């Protein structure tokens, strides 16, 4: 559990149930961010939970604090022998090194093999190019002007039920800024980010690619992730300026629940990018195999002329998993182009839907698009 979620936990358990002022103060957030959170919260209170996704789950009591806090301490294992044999077997099948397994499983590692130094080197070489890659809360302290400018610029706090909730209570996340004309020389992976490997319940990711820049960003990990929190509602925003390209890849393998579907994670994510300038390109690639319920529609707003949006997706569901995923491509600029390749694979009693929207506005004149949705079912 991160410091931040602990904070939220504490606050939530205190009598001031939604203690935003307190969280914000503890995190030393600027006044405008607190205001932003409060605006989002007030708006969220007016909203109702969406019922349109083709997924089914018990009613979530959002006042019940357990949904947005980590109630248990992370268990620290003394060695891999203490790890659940089922998880250990999966690690082995994936070919994950022993050191990496220890890190993922939360085994205490000694200072020598800890990868902190690797991360520091990594960060220094990025800094030389002017690339900012840090946790969200660090960025709030160090680059408040950037956060203020871009936070909510792609996914406003009013966007949808879960995005509004996230905007109100987000604990931490990642921030990435690529300056003008810089091609990020390595894949940026959340794995290398300085803060903990644990994934927050209400994560916020903001990626800004300035004019003519390029970045390939990796989220997630193929190793099975377990988390005490059942509901996850992250928000990812990508802002691409003129001639910028952002490639965002996700491999998500959260705990899907047992064979009867019990105990899995609900993953309700809002991911959106905007090609704000001309010739910008945003590409989403996702491989989704985990979670008991996935609800996710990475989208691109093609505002700049000649901008390009891409969506490549594989969603696998098995046993009692449910997935309702797809994309939205909003064509506003002239000559904009989008490609959608979505593959769903379902086995067992699972439920796998594709939901997509392609909107072409009257003012944009010429564009080509290709939409391909296909499903394949594993034999039973």
């Amino acid at each position, binding site marked *: 559990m991160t410091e931040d979620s602990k904070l939220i936990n504490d606050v939530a358990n205190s009598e001031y149930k939604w203690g935003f002022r307190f969280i914000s103060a503890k995190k030393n957030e600027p006044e405008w961010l607190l205001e932003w959170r409060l605006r989002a919260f007030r708006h969220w209170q007016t909203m109702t939970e969406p019922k349109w996704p083709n997924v089914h789950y018990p009613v979530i009591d959002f006042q019940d604090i357990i949904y947005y806090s980590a109630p248990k301490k992370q268990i620290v294992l003394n060695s891999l022998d203490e790890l659940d044999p089922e998880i250990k077997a999966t690690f082995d*099948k994936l070919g994950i090194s022993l050191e990496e397994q220890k890190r993922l499983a939360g085994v205490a590692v000694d200072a020598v093999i800890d990868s902190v130094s690797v991360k520091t080197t990594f960060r220094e070489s990025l800094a030389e190019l002017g690339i900012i890659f840090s946790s969200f809360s660090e960025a709030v302290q160090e680059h408040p002007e950037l956060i203020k400018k871009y936070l909510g610029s792609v996914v406003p706090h009013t966007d949808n039920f879960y995005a509004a909730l996230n905007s109100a209570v987000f604990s931490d996340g990642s921030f990435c800024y690529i300056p003008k004309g810089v091609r990020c020389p390595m894949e940026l992976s959340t794995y290398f980010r300085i803060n903990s490997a644990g994934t927050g319940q209400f994560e916020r990711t903001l990626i800004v690619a300035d004019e003519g820049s390029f970045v390939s960003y990796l989220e997630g990990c193929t190793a099975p992730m377990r988390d005490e929190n059942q509901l996850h509602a992250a928000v990812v925003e990508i802002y691409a300026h003129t001639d910028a390209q952002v490639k965002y890849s996700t491999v998500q393998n959260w705990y899907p629940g047992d064979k009867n579907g019990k105990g899995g994670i609900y993953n309700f994510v809002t991911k959106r990018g905007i090609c704000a300038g001309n010739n910008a390109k945003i590409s989403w690639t996702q491989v989704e195999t985990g979670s008991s319920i996935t609800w996710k529609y990475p989208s691109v707003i093609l505002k700049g002329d000649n901008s390009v949006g891409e969506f490549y997706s594989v969603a696998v569901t098995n046993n009692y998993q449910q997935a309702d995923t797809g994309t939205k491509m909003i064509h506003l600029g002239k000559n904009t182009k989008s490609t959608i390749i979505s593959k*769903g694979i379902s086995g067992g009693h699972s439920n796998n839907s*594709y939901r997509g929207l392609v909107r*072409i506005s*009257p003012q944009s004149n010429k564009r080509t*698009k290709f*939409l*391909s949705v296909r499903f394949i079912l594993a034999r039973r």
Partner: protein
Amino acid sequence: MWRDTFPYLEVNNRTATVEHEATTSKVGEDQIFYCNQRGISTEDAVGLIVNGYCKEVFNQLPMEFAVEAQKLLAISLEGSVG
């Protein structure tokens, strides 16, 4: 088991080109049998077929991620065949 597609198209422009293809298919008994006849077990056959099916998406992933994603897919489908 449900699988549905809800592709919404809002085209407010006559010059737009939209190609749309939506198909639902089963990992074919024919494909599995073909693999079996070449000595490949059903489980391996499903892995092979499904990975082939997803190749154009995996090709978009960075190399390392793609390899891991393939293995992950095989693990996720364990027990779904037979």
